[in-house]
């Protein structure tokens, strides 16, 4: 009998000691961060220094973050969602998981960042942009005697057979941006024809958007279709990687930021949001060796960063191609017409 008591009392005690509801006291902001981890920690530390508000930072990919927001929708635990490609942010806006907010800093931003805000009914804003392009392994291509790709048309050449990697749009926003880009400047049917032909040269559809460029860096594949700032990061890490952007024109992502609907620390969330749009905050990306284009016009851009002025950008319609329905349609078309083709 004594043992029963002890056993149950032990359980009770264990439960008690572990019970501590997460802090939502004043002076805290809970940030879900979907950029690279160094950038996240730097941003957390700097904001804390600037404002005195304690930052509780959780780093997760944008897919995982939106899954978490959706699961927590009844009782949100996060306040701000910082970074990550724009589409999931637009999706969150569409699913009413995020809160509209007009920051006084909006006036200082590039038009594309503001458009992201107006497109979503004020529920998200651009904090950086990154152009889509190619990354290639200089050593591998030299060994094969192949010239680096400079245009979308180049990728169809037979010498790239089995050398190209792109992510699977089912799991990666990067790959979806690529498809949407092609659809926008070629027209949908032509774009899918192109993708079918490209299939012959592709060795794998990687799971994550940054997978292909990592494979390029490690010599597992010759060429990747990825965001060029990711290629710059690899090159700086010492790998034989170079990047190029397509001569026909290319699309871009808008890394975004949103405030969680029903955030417990709404005032602090807004403070963080405003801060993240300042040049001081946006410089931190480059400090963490991430070379996207910052959305505040006055943020100094480091020399390593790819310059948008030198890239031929298409007029990417984020609003139309960011809609869940459109994305689902294009991805399932890709699944049926390209993804199901026999292995090249």
């Amino acid at each position: 009998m004594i043992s029963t008591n002890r056993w149950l009392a032990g359980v009770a005690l264990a439960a008690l000691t572990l019970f501590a509801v997460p802090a939502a006291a004043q002076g805290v902001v809970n940030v879900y961060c979907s950029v690279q981890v160094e950038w996240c920690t730097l941003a957390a530390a700097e904001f804390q220094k600037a404002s005195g508000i304690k930052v509780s930072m959780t780093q997760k990919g944008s897919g995982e973050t939106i899954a978490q927001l959706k699961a927590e929708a009844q009782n949100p635990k996060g306040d701000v969602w910082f970074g990550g490609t724009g589409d999931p942010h637009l999706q969150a806006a569409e699913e009413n998981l995020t809160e509209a907010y007009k920051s006084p800093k909006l006036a200082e931003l590039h038009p594309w960042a503001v458009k992201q805000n107006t497109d979503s009914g004020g529920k998200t804003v651009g904090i950086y942009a990154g152009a889509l392009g190619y990354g290639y392994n200089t050593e591998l291509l030299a060994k094969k005697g192949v010239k680096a790709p400079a245009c979308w048309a180049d990728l169809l050449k037979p010498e790239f057979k089995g050398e190209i990697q792109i992510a699977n749009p089912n799991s990666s926003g990067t790959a979806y941006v690529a498809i949407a880009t092609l659809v926008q400047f070629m027209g949908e049917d032509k774009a899918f024809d192109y993708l079918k032909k490209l299939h012959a040269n592709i060795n794998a559809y990687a799971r994550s958007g940054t997978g292909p460029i990592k494979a390029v860096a490690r010599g597992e594949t010759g060429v990747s279709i990825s965001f060029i700032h990711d290629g710059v990061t690899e090159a700086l890490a010492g790998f034989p990687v170079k990047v190029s952007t397509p001569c026909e024109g290319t699309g871009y992502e808008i890394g975004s930021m949103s405030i969680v609907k029903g955030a417990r620390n709404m005032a602090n969330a807004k403070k963080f949001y405003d801060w993240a749009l300042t040049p001081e905050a946006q410089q931190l990306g480059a400090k963490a060796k991430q070379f996207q284009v910052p959305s505040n016009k006055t943020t100094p851009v480091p020399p390593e960063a790819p310059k948008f002025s030198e890239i031929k950008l298409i007029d990417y319609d984020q609003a139309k191609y960011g809609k869940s329905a459109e994305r689902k349609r294009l991805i399932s078309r890709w699944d049926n017409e390209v993804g199901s083709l026999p292995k090249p």
Partner: protein
Amino acid sequence: MSRAALSWSIAGLLAAVLLPWYGLEDGLGSGAWIAGLWSSEDAASGLAQSIFFGRWWLAPTLAASLGCLVVSLLPLAPARRGTGLLIAGGGGVVLFAAQAFAVGLRGWNAGWLLSLLGEMEQRQVGIGAGATIVLIALLSLVSIGLALRGAFGGDAFVAGAMTTVTASILLFTAWPILHILAQAFQDQDGALRPLLIVDRLAESKIWSLRCLAGSGGCGVVWNTLFLALCCGVGSTVLGLSFALIATRTSFGFKKILRVLTVLPIITPPFVIGLALILLFGRSGLVNQLLDWSFGVQPTRWIYGFPGVLLAQLFAFTPVAFLVLIGVVEGVSPTLEEASQTLRANRWDTFVTISLPLMRPGLANAFLVGFIESIADFGNPIVLGGNFGVLSTEIYFAVVGAQLDYGRAAALALLLLVLALGAFFLQRRIVGTRSYATISGKGDSGLATPLPDAARRVAHWIALPWAGFTLLLYGFILMGGLVKVWGRDYTPTLDHYAKAFSIEFSEGGVIWSGAAWNSFWTTVELAAIAAPITAALGLLAAWLMVRQRFAGRGALEFATMLSFAVPGTVIGVAYVFAFNVPPLEITGTALIIVLCFVFRNMTVGLRAGVAAMSQIDRSLDEASATLRGRAPQTLFYVVMPLLRPAIVGALVYGFVRAVTTVSAVVFLVTAEYDLATTYIILRVINGDYGLAIAYSCALIVLMLAVILLIQFLVGDRRLGRRALPVQGVRA
């Protein structure tokens, strides 16, 4: 027993009056709540909440607690007291649950309650210390009531254990998992549409057989099944070879073999996959060597089925070995000697006597390999390439562009069906036939050596594999010690310094390394979880083997649930179930510990069931005859004989807690970051050096912990004259 009833009644009532009913923002630590016990709406006790703050729905539960006290105090016959406690306590539990689920963050939770009773002004948040203790007290009173009425042999310990196990499994396994699996039958808005599952599962992506026709990939179900079959067969063959070498030959390096079999179990996920890429990838050592020496074009064969299978065989062969070695040791030499006396040669003896006797072990090893392969997520994600399996498909249904929990749930159901199908098939194959070869009678105890042919085969299979394992781990070790793995092989200690540097200042030690935070959290939470996992698992095993009760099968099934459902689904299920009142524990350490405990408990339970069926019931009966009560029998007779199972459950509980990834991705927070999630972020960053350095540190930690557990728990000491162990059952 009446005294216990009285104490629990008082404890429950005190908690209802002296502790905050609801969870507090900053916990109980500060003590600031004491002042607000009667005046602050946040910190008020249950009684104050129901009187002053309009939460009248708490009153019935409190009244039930009071009822229990009255029943405990009245001079009643035991059986009648039992009935009273059962009614009052059971009623209390039901009332507690009813109010907790009916009233939530936004008033009434259900639409029909709203329309019936009108808009509710009050809200309630997650339960806190007061409510938890009241609930535990009520549950204890119910079990005491049951025991008083003569259930479970009138033993309150058994009744209490039973209540604890059942309630916790219901709450932390069955409820969250069934809750999310139910989404397979709901549309995006949560409306019930049972036929939706047909749509969700009728995709060609899942069932396509195109690969047979040579045109495209096969559906994920076939991929999963084929991979699992290969992995099950492969790991069983490899495990058997190792087991035979370890027990039946005079092989000289058995110690090393033992260590090799442990290593993959304690290796954090992703590491083996990464090492394989560095070895066999297109720019890996092997391909470079072939290219350099023979001009063979490097290929990418490692990505896809071959690579995943290879990685899984690495990971799961040790488990098969551990399952088989007990069985191979257990095969009694007596029968083999009898066979040889009857002039069968060694080969015939091996094939017709030894192997069939190992059948339960082989079937179990296959089952473990099969299920582990189905549920594996880390290896397919790293090495899968275009080769998709169910677990990765589920992951992308949750976190990919689809964000479709319904589809994830439907696929998880499919996976569960596969796992359970294998489980029942295995039961059929092993059947009820007796494989008992260890009995009270002594036998010579000298294992027959393997026939030469079998020995050679075993050597040929196992030794290259062992060499390969050594090579791979050499590689992993090296990976943390060079600048950029695969690129710049300058030796360096930078990665270790970055992760684990320590600085000394006047203020003491500063843990300045980047990894310390997650490292200590992991150690702490795993150390809390492991003993609970082992205790609960073994307690459940003891109940299932030794006690007869209704619903045993259902309970066993419930524990299987969390084992066979992939981690990602468990993680999301926990967020869904425990992010809203009554149990609002997301973001705490508690939810991570609970996730560890209930995900890994199954193995402790299995080990316990297997070990306990070896211990003859007569020992329990002897203890009972000597007036030992159930707890005494358990602690002084059964437990010492269970030492290997205890070690196993503790080790497994700890190791799995340290190496789990997919289940905790959704549960970690800034405050409670874990080692594996930290490592994965590094891997995603391409920072392999740091990831591998950290993994090596974890491997060392886990080895140390295993040795410590072994040392603390000790070995089972069996009498030498005759084994007091009887009947190895299937």
